[in-house]
């Protein structure tokens, strides 16, 4: 049964990376469409809209971080798989869920907010700082999820 434990743990790492990565791809894609629209008419705004476009990309990095810590913890990276019970494997899977689920949804929401913020930059480029803040607000919840996933994964005794 110890093999099933490692399967659950790996599933946790996969959920963290897959869901948050998918969310970031969709979010960056939405913001990228808006950025392309603005740059088509005004290429001088490229740098500003690029920064805003990248904001929904952070969730993917958070998922990667949790996935990396999980793989490291269960010995997939260090060599020599840890002998995990089913219960520990499930605990690690549960620990990875916050960043997976919140990463997916918050990145999509952030992508939409970033697209709207790019509209601010298109019309009032001097308001770039304020425009950045609206999508950055969504980031708060991805960070909270990252914190909980990080504390949980590192806190589980293997």
């Amino acid at each position, binding site marked *: 049964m110890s093999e099933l434990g490692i399967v659950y743990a790996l599933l946790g790492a996969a959920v963290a990376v897959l869901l948050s990565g998918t969310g970031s791809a969709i979010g960056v894609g939405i913001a990228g469409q808006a950025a392309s*629209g603005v740059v088509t008419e005004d290429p001088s705004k490229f740098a500003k809209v690029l920064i805003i476009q990248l904001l929904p990309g952070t969730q993917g990095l958070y998922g990667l971080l949790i996935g990396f810590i999980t793989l490291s913890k269960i010995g997939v990276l260090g060599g020599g798989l840890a002998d995990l019970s089913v219960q520990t494997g499930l605990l690690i899977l549960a620990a990875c869920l916050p960043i997976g689920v919140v990463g997916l949804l918050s990145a999509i929401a952030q992508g939409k907010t970033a697209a709207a913020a790019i509209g601010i930059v298109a019309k009032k480029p001097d308001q770039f700082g304020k425009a950045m803040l609206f999508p950055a607000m969504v980031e708060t919840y991805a960070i909270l999820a990252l914190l909980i996933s990080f504390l949980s994964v590192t806190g589980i005794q293997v």
Partner: protein
Amino acid sequence: MSNTKYTYAVARIRALETSLLDDAAVEQLMGCGSAGQALQLLADRGWGGSSAEPDMESVLKCEEEKTWQVIRDVAPDMSVFDVLLYPRLYHNLKAAVKAVCTGVKHPHIFYDDCPVPGKEMMRIVESKEFSRLPGNMPRTAREAMDILLHTGDGQLCDICVDRAALEAAAEAGKRSGERIIEEYADTTVAIADIKIAVRAQKTGKSAEFMRSAMAECSSLNVGQLISAALAGADEIAQYLQETSYAGGAEALRTSPSAFERWCDNRMIEILKPQKYETFSVGPLLGYLIARENEIKTVRIILTGKKNGFPDDAIRERIREMYV
């Protein structure tokens, strides 16, 4: 993710909205001593083509074409803009029917930037292949030809085609599935109905005439509007007070040009909230109407200055700007 299909288009429109004329720019145009100076000011803002000595008509036509080109470039689905193309399409039908029935042909009476351009429309009407026309046009074309051939009354032919155009616009609004397009189409029909009522009252037309000219819309009761028009101008204003077109009642009392101005301003008013939309077709429609509105305003200013109209007379006709 279907609600994000307008993201690129809206962002591009947002960037273009910065070059729309605002109230300050209109004031600058008004401050110009002559139509030539005003044209130069517009050329400095990028209006017109590369012509060294631009004339008013070519500059305005060029701007109209630029606007539609942008919309064609960015819109994922042009069919939602059918409602805006119908006036030109039905104008072509009306012109072709009259040209064929009277045998008098003028090459410059057609619009070419619409789904059925002038030459094509003439071929269809001449050969009576009406089934090649879209929507309710085949029936309308047959009716309009019959009316003109049997009665020789151009006005009856006009109201037949104009009413069909209004019905087609209302239908296209509903078909688009976009709330703002539907609202735009309904307002277009309502304003056309109000204009018909006002003009019919002034010329003493019958209820039957008005009924055959007006199209149904959800924001006005056509029956009540006709009764008001039969009773008098004050009654029309009184009826409008009870509807969402109350502002029109006030404008009607001021002057006919104030009423025309109110009609355009009303349209801009319903579109203004679209400046804050990010994921819908609304900003595209807003930009399109805003451009048409500013082109109309520039035409009024240039024509007024060219003909030496006093500033007050021009100002009375200046439309509200979108930005």
